[in-house]
């Protein structure tokens, strides 16, 4: 187990480092100039050259990369061009909002999609199941900005019960959460439905039924427990994706998360800020994946870490 953990953490660190290197190169190879985005429109080419020198962008690429790696290992990701403060701090200030929205959206998704999927499995191939399928797929197919704007129109404008934007109170969390969850419902509920249909038709459920186990215990204790590995995998993957920020939803609701920060960083070619964002979100995503992997042997005793390591 300790060997396995050490190896997984080593792999994770390497993945984060390679991701950062890729992003470092890509943003510099992509068109656009941080200096002209930063400078006033009236700036002369001499001004721009001075700004480039100030940002260290006049150096050759490999020299810049050398500085970047050196600073990375001291925990310094540079100063954001537009915020004039350490890039990592700017990102970390935004993270609580992104994490709050991601946790809340995954919680709502789980609480709705799991019972819905179970219900669909137990009413497989009926009109009601078809109806539930159509509705969830419609939810998934609607663009998130449209869902967001519609929810805003109804619940913040026509019937103003919820705040339209920002995060000033917990009620501000409701509409962004619903918008994000609507996108996940079809995926998770259909996965639960498929896994549960297989589990409910399996021999051990029939045998348990033969010894008088109630239908609700068969569903929730036997079949759902046997569906937990793919379910946790899917929820973990979706959660990791949400931690990268949900750009459109954050913009629609004025949510101060990482997603809207990324947009601003890209617009201004704020290299240090882009790199800091990638570092934080990639680390979180990989951490979630690691936790999901560590959960497998708890959910299914047949998964043995001893053999995998």
């Amino acid at each position, binding site marked *: 187990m300790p060997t396995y953990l050490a190896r997984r953490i080593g792999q994770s660190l390497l993945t984060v480092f390679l991701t950062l290197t890729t992003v470092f190169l890509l943003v510099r190879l992509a068109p656009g100039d941080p200096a002209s985005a930063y400078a006033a429109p009236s700036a002369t080419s001499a001004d721009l050259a001075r700004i480039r020198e100030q940002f260290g962008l006049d150096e050759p690429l490999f020299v810049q990369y050398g500085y970047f790696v050196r600073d990375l290992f001291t925990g310094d990701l540079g100063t954001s061009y537009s915020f004039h403060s350490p890039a990592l701090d700017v990102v970390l200030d935004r993270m609580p909002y992104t994490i709050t929205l991601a946790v809340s959206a995954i919680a709502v998704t789980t609480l709705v999609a799991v019972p819905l999927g179970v219900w669909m499995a137990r009413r497989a191939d009926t009109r009601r199941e078809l109806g539930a399928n159509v509705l969830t797929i419609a939810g998934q197919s609607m663009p998130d900005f449209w869902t967001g704007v519609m929810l805003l129109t109804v619940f913040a404008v026509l019937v103003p019960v919820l705040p339209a934007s920002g995060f000033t109170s917990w009620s501000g969390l409701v509409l962004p959460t619903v918008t994000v969850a609507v996108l996940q419902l079809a995926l998770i509920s259909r996965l639960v439905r498929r896994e549960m249909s297989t589990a409910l038709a399996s021999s051990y459920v*029939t045998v348990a039924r033969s010894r008088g186990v109630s239908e609700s215990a068969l569903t929730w204790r036997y079949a759902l427990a046997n569906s937990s590995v793919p379910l946790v995998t899917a929820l973990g993957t979706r959660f990791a994706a949400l931690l990268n920020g949900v750009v459109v939803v954050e913009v629609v609701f004025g949510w101060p998360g990482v997603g809207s920060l990324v947009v601003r960083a890209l617009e201004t070619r704020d290299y240090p800020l882009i790199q800091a964002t990638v570092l934080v979100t990639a680390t979180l995503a990989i951490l979630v994946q690691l936790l999901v992997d560590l959960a497998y042997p708890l959910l299914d005793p047949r998964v043995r870490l001893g053999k995998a390591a």
Partner: protein
Amino acid sequence: MAKDTPLLDVADLQVELITGQGVVRAVDGVTFTVRRGETVTLIGESGSGKSTTAMGVLRLLPEGLAVLSGSVRIAGRDVVADPDAARAVRGRTVSLIPQDPMTALSPVHTIGRQLGDALRLRHPELTRTEARDKGVELLGRVRISEPETRWKAYPHQFSGGMLQRILIATALAAEPELLVADEPTSALDATVQASVLDLLMELQEHTGIGMLMITHDLGVARLVSDRIHVMKDGRFVESGSAEEIVERPAEPYTRELLAAVPRLGTWDEDESSYGDGDGRIEPLVQGATS
């Protein structure tokens, strides 16, 4: 229930299965009874409807895909007419020993959890510790060694023969009057088959339960049965005592089934392959006559 009421009284049972190719009449009007302390065997080739009969009797065929008619009275209650009666008798009056022990227990729960649950369903007043003590004792009765330590083990940590013993223990947890054994030994090795059958017969001797045995194996049928019904295409083609059926088969189909029983002898590559699906009964028959 009157003393002379059969434990299981099946009258003109028909089972129609709804399949992709249309409706198939898998069981076409069978009538038989099982009394206390008696073993009745349904024997037939694959697809003869014997397992469908057993699962139909317990109402364990998928709802909506199987249509039952006729009557099946378990301890006097008709489970065809009343699905609630089926739920009421399962795990109390009647238990199932399934065909394939390797897939018959939930892989993510310990055997103790599943056996303990079965005990607590029958005796809700038992605490977890009491259920555990009782379960460990049951595991000992089906000759699982070190039952205390094995209580916390998962199904994948056991062999097929051990799992079948655990499933027998789980079926016994219900303290049933009737056991339905759906090919209880066909997924097991020859030597293990013998010990599982021995165990079943010994338990029957001690408890006097009635048994409905499903098998395709005449050796098994001869060993355990009081009465045998030979089944083909959903009907009984021949019925009688074990001796009558084996010694004086009237129907060509029964004679074919008998002829399909391989003899124990030297390996003959051209002739047949001793040790395939049906080639494991000879030791049992010897055990029965010795």
